[in-house]
């Protein structure tokens, strides 16, 4: 991806986001000239950029959206939800393409067709508006042959003159651009590649001028064709000229019924010959495998439908070989043999019809989240990591400096080392702080997708909701935002689904019909506070108790002992759901406990307050940066422990003969040092596992404050970056641990304090 493409991706995402915001404003406050003009400008710029990076599919789609929004601005259309939905769907599609373009550098094969379909959907609003002068887009044929354009009917007639018509077909209308020859296009070459061609008609788009006045380099041709190949394979051929081609699915009933009484193999032979032709086109390297694939499919389909089954099998085998060897030769050979065999086949056909529906391969590119700052976030992360390592190196320098001080104390060199160490320490600390500051982003970035989310979900639930955000300029680390997004979505969905009443209920309760959800961000020292509040029905502690007892979350006497606040807190328990029926929006009973564990994993806390009939407020208290530590996960006595990687100097596996006994203690010689061996299980007062005395022992060498010990463990599981939480509550006074962390599976992991372990 070159700089131009990168810039396009960044700019496109920004434009899509802004257009979406303004669309929501349009819907909520009516079509103000300003909002509509804004959307229009954004769409126009986007269309222009798409043209520059040569994504015609995107251009034609956006062009249609632009027409629609222009209608809104001029007042010929009303900004109702359906129209806003349609334009948003268009932006979603474009956004999806931008993701694909970023990932693959090209749009998916079906983009041209999808874009055209989307454009037609958008244009249908224009044609429905009676006052609008824009000519209706030609409609796709839907039902009977009577509705088919005459050129398609003509092509079908051409097939039905063959004894055996196909079961399904796609009509192709290809009108190459006038200047296409100058772009190096050869339309005929594209047509040659169309798989499963069953009929073809070539004509002049405008009647040819007299021979003396013809410009031989202005393309004035129109190609009309019918193919029985998969539509996807056809659109792949035309992927670079989606604006010049239309694919129209021919409904099965529009095709003449098969005449089983007069079976013939002419069509099958035609299809096979066409594939052979296509494969023989020279100079095809880039899409050779795609060609082989579509040729195999078209040929095998045709053979299945009108020939002995073993011929289709042979073609499939030939295709597999061709794909493996990356040359069409084996497939060509198979086609040749099939053609020869067909000549000898008795004219009885199987009943198998052509065109089994094939699952359309959705090359679903994982939807890349918006990860671009001004600089790619990965580069910033790399910088943050380097700064972190610099801090570690700085600590090592401090140790060396101390040694210099011990051995050469009072000398000039020792003072110089100390002076430089101090300077470096100060600079490194400042650098680390400044680099972390790079990742600071404003809360507005977190909030920006919520208006759309709330709008869509509220519409789905037939509720009226307004969103209020405060504290958009509050800064926090991007890694917090990345981890905060999902819990926030859960919270908002919960508020919309469970908290907010529908307009009738709100009316009956004497509340305004439009509910309010507010999100506020603020800083308190080095903590980030986020508050999500709704003015919905609130949580009823009695209902929570009832549900908890039904779900057997707690015993009846335990439930009775809870205060109302404690009862409300039960919504964070795993497997709790207050919605009477599961819904699409939330209420799978995984929402709130996922929120709590998500927040706690990054060292935060969640608190919930609710007043019945008045509303609910969820408060998130988070660090503004995530401080990570790297730990080694070890297993001993059947339990997992973490050891800070900073303290681990190495891990070794030694055979028992290398272990020597000194009085009651064991030791091993490593790098000319006697290192005492301590069983971690014994140290943690855990039962030791019975083991084979001859088996090698696994030792983790821990070094801290000048001491060294080899801890014997049963296994080393993993190395992890974790956020360490200090020991809290009951564990507060327990010694020997640096803190706890949550593992991915929700298990609490105790992280050992190396310094105390060595005491």
């Amino acid at each position, binding site marked *: 991806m070159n700089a131009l493409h990168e810039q396009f991706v960044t700019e496109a995402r920004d434009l899509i986001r802004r257009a979406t915001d303004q669309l929501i404003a349009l819907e909520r406050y009516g079509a103000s000239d300003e909002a509509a003009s804004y959307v229009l400008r954004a769409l126009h710029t986007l269309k222009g950029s798409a043209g520059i990076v040569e994504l015609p599919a995107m251009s034609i789609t956006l062009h249609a959206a632009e027409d629609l929004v222009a209608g809104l601005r001029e007042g010929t259309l009303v900004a109702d939800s359906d129209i806003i939905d349609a334009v948003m769907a268009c932006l979603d599609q474009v956004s999806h393409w931008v993701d694909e373009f970023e990932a693959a550098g090209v749009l998916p094969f079906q983009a041209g067709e999808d874009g055209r379909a989307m454009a037609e959907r958008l244009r249908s609003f224009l044609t429905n508006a009676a006052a609008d002068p824009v000519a209706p887009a030609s409609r796709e044929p839907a039902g009977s042959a009577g509705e088919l354009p005459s050129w398609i009917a003509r092509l079908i007639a051409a097939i039905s003159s063959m004894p055996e018509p196909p079961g399904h077909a796609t009509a192709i209308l290809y009108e190459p651009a006038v200047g296409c020859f100058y772009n190096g296009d050869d339309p005929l070459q594209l047509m040659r590649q169309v798989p499963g061609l069953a009929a073809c008609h070539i004509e002049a788009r405008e009647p040819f001028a007299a021979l003396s006045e013809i410009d031989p380099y202005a393309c004035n041709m129109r190609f009309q064709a019918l193919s029985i190949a998969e539509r996807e394979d056809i659109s792949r051929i035309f992927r670079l000229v989606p604006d010049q081609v239309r694919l129209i699915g021919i409904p099965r009933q529009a095709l003449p019924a098969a005449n089983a009484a007069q079976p013939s193999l002419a069509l099958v032979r035609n299809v096979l010959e066409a594939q052979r032709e296509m494969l023989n*086109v020279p100079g095809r390297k880039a899409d050779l495998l795609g060609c082989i694939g579509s040729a195999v499919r078209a040929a095998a389909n045709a053979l299945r439908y009108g020939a002995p089954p073993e011929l289709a099998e042979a073609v499939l085998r030939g295709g597999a070989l061709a794909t493996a060897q990356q040359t069409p030769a084996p497939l060509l050979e198979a086609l040749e043999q099939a053609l020869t065999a067909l000549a000898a086949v008795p004219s009885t056909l199987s009943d198998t019809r052509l065109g089994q529906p094939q699952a359309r391969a959705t090359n679903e590119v994982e939807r890349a989240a918006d990860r671009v700052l001004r600089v790619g976030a990965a580069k910033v992360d790399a910088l943050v990591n380097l700064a972190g390592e610099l801090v570690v190196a700085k600590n090592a320098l401090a140790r060396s400096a101390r040694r210099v001080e011990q051995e050469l104390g009072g000398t000039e060199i020792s003072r110089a080392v100390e002076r430089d160490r101090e300077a470096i320490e100060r600079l490194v600390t400042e650098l680390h702080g400044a680099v972390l500051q790079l990742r600071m982003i404003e809360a507005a970035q977190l909030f920006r997708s919520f208006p759309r989310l709330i709008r869509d979900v509220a519409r789905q639930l037939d509720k009226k909701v307004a969103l209020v955000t405060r504290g958009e300029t509050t800064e926090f680390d991007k890694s917090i935002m990345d981890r905060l997004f999902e819990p926030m979505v859960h919270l908002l969905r919960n508020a919309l689904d469970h908290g907010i009443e529908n307009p009738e209920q709100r009316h009956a309760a004497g509340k305004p019909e439009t509910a309010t959800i507010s999100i506020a961000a603020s800083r308190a020292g080095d903590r980030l506070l986020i508050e999500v509040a709704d003015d919905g029905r609130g949580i009823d502690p009695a209902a929570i108790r009832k549900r908890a007892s039904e779900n057997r979350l707690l015993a009846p006497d335990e439930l009775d002992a809870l205060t109302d606040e404690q009862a409300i807190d039960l919504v964070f328990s795993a497997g709790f759901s207050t919605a009477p029926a599961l819904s699409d929006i939330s209420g799978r009973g995984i929402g709130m406990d996922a929120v709590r564990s998500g927040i706690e994993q990054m060292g935060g806390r969640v608190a919930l307050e609710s007043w019945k009939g008045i509303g609910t407020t969820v408060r998130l208290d988070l660090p503004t940066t995530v401080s990570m530590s790297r730990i080694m996960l070890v297993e001993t006595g059947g339990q997992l422990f973490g050891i800070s990687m900073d303290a681990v100097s190495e891990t070794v596996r030694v055979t028992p003969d290398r272990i020597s006994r000194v009085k009651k203690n064991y030791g091993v010689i490593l790098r000319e040092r006697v290192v005492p061996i301590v069983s971690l299980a014994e140290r943690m007062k855990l039962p030791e596992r019975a083991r084979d005395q001859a088996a090698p022992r696994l030792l983790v060498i821990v070094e801290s404050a000048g001491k060294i010990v080899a801890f014997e463990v049963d296994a080393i599981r993993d190395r992890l970056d974790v956020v360490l939480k200090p020991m809290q509550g009951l564990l507060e006074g327990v010694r020997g641990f640096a803190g706890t962390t949550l593992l991915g599976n929700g298990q609490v992991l105790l992280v050992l304090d190396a310094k105390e372990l060595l005491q």
Partner: protein
Amino acid sequence: MTVHRTEAGVIILEGVCPVEDAEPLLQMLQRTPKAALDWTQCERMHTAVLQVILASGIAPIGRCGDTWVAQWVAPGLHKAAGD
């Protein structure tokens, strides 16, 4: 040159006829619109070349060496020219 004219006045397309052949072919046909056109030796033609043939309204001689054109274009062409 993949397009040339014999002494007998027959225009011959030979081998792979690229886009550049459209102009000389057009010039030949402009000078002699009723000339016979032999495309049996043409292995593959560019759209621009085909366009000139279509625009001229003539029916070339024999089976087109470009098999795709022979299969999908020529039948219509002969019919149109014969009408």
